[in-house]
C-alpha cells in the first residue's frame, strides 16, 4: 500500500512562532487531507488539498503532487494550535475516499 511519512515527529514552539510540517507519500494520489487532533481527541479537517495551495487564516497548505509531498504552514502559532497534525492520502486509481494516514506531527505551543 501507499506509504505516508510526516516530519518532524515532534515540534515545540513558543507562541508567535511559525512552523512548517511536511508530508511525503510514496505514490500518486487523488485525495490528500490535513487534520488536527486537539488534546481532547477531536479530529478537525483543516484542508482537502490533492494539489495546489489553499489558505485559511493563519494556516495554509501546499501540495506538489508531481513531487509527492505536501506542506502545512502555521503562522503566528497559538497555544490552541497544540495537538497532533495528520496528513492522509488516497492512492490514485481508487475512488472511495479510503484514506491512509501518516503517523502525525505532535505540536506543542508554549505561552
Amino acid at each position, binding site marked *: 500500500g501507499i506509504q505516508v511519512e510526516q516530519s518532524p515527529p515532534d515540534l515545540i514552539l513558543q507562541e508567535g512562532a511559525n512552523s512548517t510540517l511536511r508530508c511525503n507519500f510514496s505514490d500518486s494520489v487523488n*485525495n490528500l487531507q490535513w487534520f488536527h487532533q486537539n488534546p481532547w481527541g477531536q479530529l478537525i479537517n483543516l484542508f482537502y488539498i490533492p494539489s495546489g495551495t489553499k489558505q485559511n487564516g493563519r494556516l495554509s497548505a501546499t501540495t506538489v503532487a508531481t513531487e509527492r509531498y505536501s506542506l502545512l504552514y502555521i503562522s503566528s502559532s497559538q497555544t490552541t494550535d497544540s495537538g497532533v497534525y495528520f496528513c492522509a492520502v488516497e492512492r490514485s486509481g481508487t475512488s472511495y475516499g479510503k484514506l491512509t494516514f501518516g503517523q502525525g506531527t505532535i505540536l506543542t505551543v508554549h505561552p
Partner: protein
Amino acid sequence: DAGITQSPRHKVTETGTPVTLRCHQTENHRYMYWYRQDPGHGLRLIHYSYGVKDTDKGEVSDGYSVSRSKTEDFLLTLESATSSQTSVYFCAISDSPYNEQFFGPGTRLTVL
C-alpha cells in the same frame, strides 16, 4: 460542525462478547467510514460504505463487520471482542470521495 454522533462514547467489555458501535449522521452524506486509532499505528481504515447496503473492507477489517440499512446510520460490530480490539474508534462522513472527511467524537472501547 458536521452532525455526527457516535454511541456509546465509552465502553468496557469482556473478551468474547459481541459489541456494536453506532455512527449517526444528520448530513445525508453518502460516504461513511470506520477507523481505529492506536498508539504507534495512527488511524487505520476498518470498513467503509459508499451507499445504503454498499460496504467494503478497509485495511484492518479482520474481526469486524458493518451494516448500513439507512443513509444516516453505519454500524460497526465486533462479533467476539478480543483484547487487540481495545482502541479508539472514529466514524467519518463525506459527501464525495473527492472532498473533506468529517469525524465524529470517537468511541473508546476497552476489551478486558
